[in-house]
């Protein structure tokens, strides 16, 4: 019996690893496809966890930044505190105005009914691949002088409990609103639901245009 529990724990651990790796890959891919950094800074890699081919920056500073982000986020995701990971792209050309936000909406359902079998990850692989296929069909932005930041929507008080020295800035939703321009367009990218692993995830883009 304890073997089964152990096995289930391992699966949850693996899913977490895949998720973290996936988010990291998505950040890099968005930076590439949206042209935030020049294309030559990126190269193709096949991720060890997700097995997906995606673009990865070659700049060590950027890589470290993204990796650190994921490291600090890991514990929160593990405890189901993170609801959304938002990759915001803004342009200095328009005075630092937000252009768009790519939102990864996550839900890790604590699933007691995980049945370990060898095929359990197979559907996940295909789902993740669809995300990348969709992401790769995005076009580069016309705006220049782009910059990005990553926001996390999470249950803040519990996050604070977990991490004492938070290296994240806490912003309220009001702060966000003030920077918004008037019109928002929602563009869904992909949704998935994996019952076996208790993972529900969707990705969409919010596009901001000033009227």
């Amino acid at each position, binding site marked *: 019996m304890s073997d089964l529990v152990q096995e289930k724990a391992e699966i949850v651990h693996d899913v977490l690893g895949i998720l973290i790796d996936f988010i990291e890959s998505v950040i890099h891919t968005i930076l590439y496809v949206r042209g935030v950094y020049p294309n030559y800074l990126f190269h193709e890699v096949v991720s060890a966890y997700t097995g997906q*081919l995606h673009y990865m920056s070659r700049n060590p500073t950027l890589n470290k930044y993204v990796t650190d982000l994921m490291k600090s986020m890991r514990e929160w995701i593990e405890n189901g505190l993170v609801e*959304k990971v938002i990759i915001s792209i803004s342009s200095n050309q328009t005075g630092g105005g937000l252009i768009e936000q790519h939102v990864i909406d996550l839900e890790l359902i604590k699933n007691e009914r995980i049945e370990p079998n060898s*095929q359990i990850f197979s*559907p996940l692989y*295909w789902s993740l*691949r669809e995300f990348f296929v969709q992401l*790769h069909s995005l076009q580069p932005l016309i705006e220049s002088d782009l910059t990005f930041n990553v926001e996390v929507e999470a249950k803040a008080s519990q996050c604070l409990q977990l991490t004492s020295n938070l290296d994240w800035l806490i912003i309220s939703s009001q702060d966000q*609103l003030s920077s918004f321009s008037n019109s928002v*367009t929602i563009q869904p*990218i992909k949704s998935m639901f994996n019952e076996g692993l208790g993972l529900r995830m969707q990705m969409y883009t919010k596009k901001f245009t000033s009227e």
Partner: protein
Amino acid sequence: MDVPKSVFSVTTKRNRENVEGWTSRDHYFDVKRKRLEEQFEKERTLDKPQIFKVMTKDVRIYVDGRTNPSMLELKELMAQHGGGFEQFVGPSVTHIICVNLAEATLKRLQTMMNPPNVVNPKWITDSIRSSCLLSLKDYLVVDRKNTNRPAFKSNDLGEFQKNSRLHLIGAYRKRHDHSDTLDEEVDEHVRKFIVHLDMDCFFASVAMRDDPSLVDKPIAVAHSSTGNSEISSANYVARSYGIKAGMWMTTAREKCPNLIVLPYEMDEYERTAQRMNNILFEMCEKKHVRIMSIDEAYIDLTTQCNNDHRTAIHIVTNMRNNIREATGCTCSAGISHNMLLARMATKHAKPNGQYYLDDVEHIVTNFIKDQKISLLEIPGIGRKTFVKIQERFGQHITTASDLWTLSMHQLTQLLGSKNGESIYYNCRGIPTATPRATFCAKSIGVEMNWGIRFSTQDQVNVFLIDLSKQVSTRLKSQSSKTKSITVKVKARKQGAPIEPIKYMGHGPCDNASKSIVCDATDDSTLIGKHAVHLYQQLNVVTTDLRGIGIQVTKLIKASSSTTYATSLSQYFTRNTVSDVSGGDDGEVVQQEEQQEVEDDPFEGITEQEIEELFADINNQQVQVQRPTTPPPPQQHDITYSQIDKNVLHDLPKHIQDEILGDCGQKKKKPVLTIKRKVNKKNVDVKTTNVDIQQMFVKIADSNKQEQDEMNNIKNGVYSLDYSVVRQLPKSIQKEIVKNKVAERKDRDLAIKIQQQQVPTPNETVLPHSDTFFPCLRDNVYQVCFCVCEWMSQVTDAPDESEQVFLEMVLQWFQQVVCQEKNLEAAVKLLRYMKKMCDQNPSCESIFNKVNHVVCTNILPMSGVCDQNCTINIDGI
């Protein structure tokens, strides 16, 4: 301004011609060549004067393929040391620098008036090191004076063996042989239990395990994806196309154009095999396990079984499960009472199954008869012997049972006393030697029959010395000495083409051999000396040599010089060592057989044939497990039309392929079929409502129906016991499910007809919410269909049902967006609704209403957006 002269001259020339851009392709290349020359000249003029110029301007090199040092380094070296460098092969090139030259390039060179020398890059580096132009003699890759064929260098033997799967398989057994410990005396009255374990399409399995996306695609493992490369392993998907191991790539490509060819991963195979072996050694004593090759082993379970075959079956089941867990690859096992029958049983158990074959005479004979065991599966019969038997006794002799009509005399007359006798017994399932006899190689041979193209005697001598080193190493590793050395050669048959169809293969050959008896030795120089001497006596034209090998026989243990090794059954030893029975004729048979065994005779038949052969038994034996089919990958929701072609072209090639591949793949999927049909039918949806509905129900349910029925049986819906049904043969199970599906269809149809007869208050076909909603979450297309159908009938006149339906739709949106976080599905429905507006302008208000509610209420409620927003329906 200081302009290099050459640049200046070209510029003026271009000015003179007054050409902007390129006039033709030739011109383009002309300009490009000149530019490159300019560039090179510039580099050359820049270098430091103190460097001694080794090269002269007469040396102009062209680098072909990958070299060490690389092309760029060579270019730099040439610039530094005064030579010339060309980007294209042209008349000015004097030397082609390469390690290997492709056949096509070679042919092109042969047509040239003054073909350049083809030399190894070492020539340049060595020349520079020794500060003078060295003679080309030792560096030639192609000997121009002779035949223009690539000449082998001494280090090729190791290189060849590193890439040879046959060598891997053969050498693997040598390294893992624990046969010395398998000589335990067993009471003759105790029935032996022998298990033959074989991994299913091993090389392909390893590849599929490491890349799960390959599972449902036809894959093969071979050296090259084109031409006359030989397939060594193909998965079962590929086999369904008729692809077999040993097939040439050109043939395979004809059968299956989208065959995925993967390279060998020798290290990975070894690691996987090691894991398998570890399990075998864990579960059985080492002395009871005989590793036959990298993916095959015999295990003796006699001591563990207690004379009960059920115990054996149980142990083997566990063993196979463990192996699958540890290696990620499946294997098949045959259980019987001797090795011969165990191996026959394995053949039957494949893929991913096991089979117990009793050695009671009538069962064995029936098995051989029923299974139509091919002649080639009988130990001792290779392709050559097969042809021989058919020529003598008629073409109708194809299976083992056909041989029963022949007497032992007939067989021994044709095949020699020893061979004939063993085949006579083997075809009846009777092993000719006890499997527990002492195993010890009685001969060691190192042979190379591929890629042998020599031009001088010296090259052959060097090669023979290399071979003798290998022989000596192997002799020492089993601490033996040899008293007889044989050199075997294959020479091109007179009239045979110089280059056979198989690239670098040996083609039709005459075989010859010469032996010498000497004092016991394991010294490489002594063996090499003898070998060179023997080769000279054979008087073979060097250029016609197609295969060469050294074999040492009459082995004695280095410690006790008198004990001769006893022999195991031929069946056992022929995998790695061949027996010299003297005389050229016998030798030919031996060599042929050796090759055939390396190709695994079991792989000679297509999987389909095997399926047919063994179909009956599969259905009768519960012990045989069928492979579980991999779950189909999830449906993809992108169609070709949805892809932005401009973006697509900007993407790297493989991602393009992947995206396009995805589209192509999905065309086969039922979900997409529905979508396309809905799209198409939208045009005339008003006229064919009922038909669409029926068609729709059919398509949507066809896949699920069988599964549902199985579940129904499981849940006791019918008066059938699920466990009983599960135990039934597959075919009967299928039939039951089929019947149930048919029954359900009839029932559904009856209900539908009944419903149609009841007049509805208004003309609209309004699906009942109970029947409508449960399926909503399953398939967005079903919802789209229902909604579209309803919208197509909306009129401008006020309708009560409209409000009800709208509420239902909005409820669905809320559930999908807020609870299921599936914006994608929501947008899909909106898209369909918008499309319907184009056809039926009356429903535009409905669409606007829905869209408004979704954007202003549902999206903010779900937390997607905090304020009024719009939703992009038109796609990325």
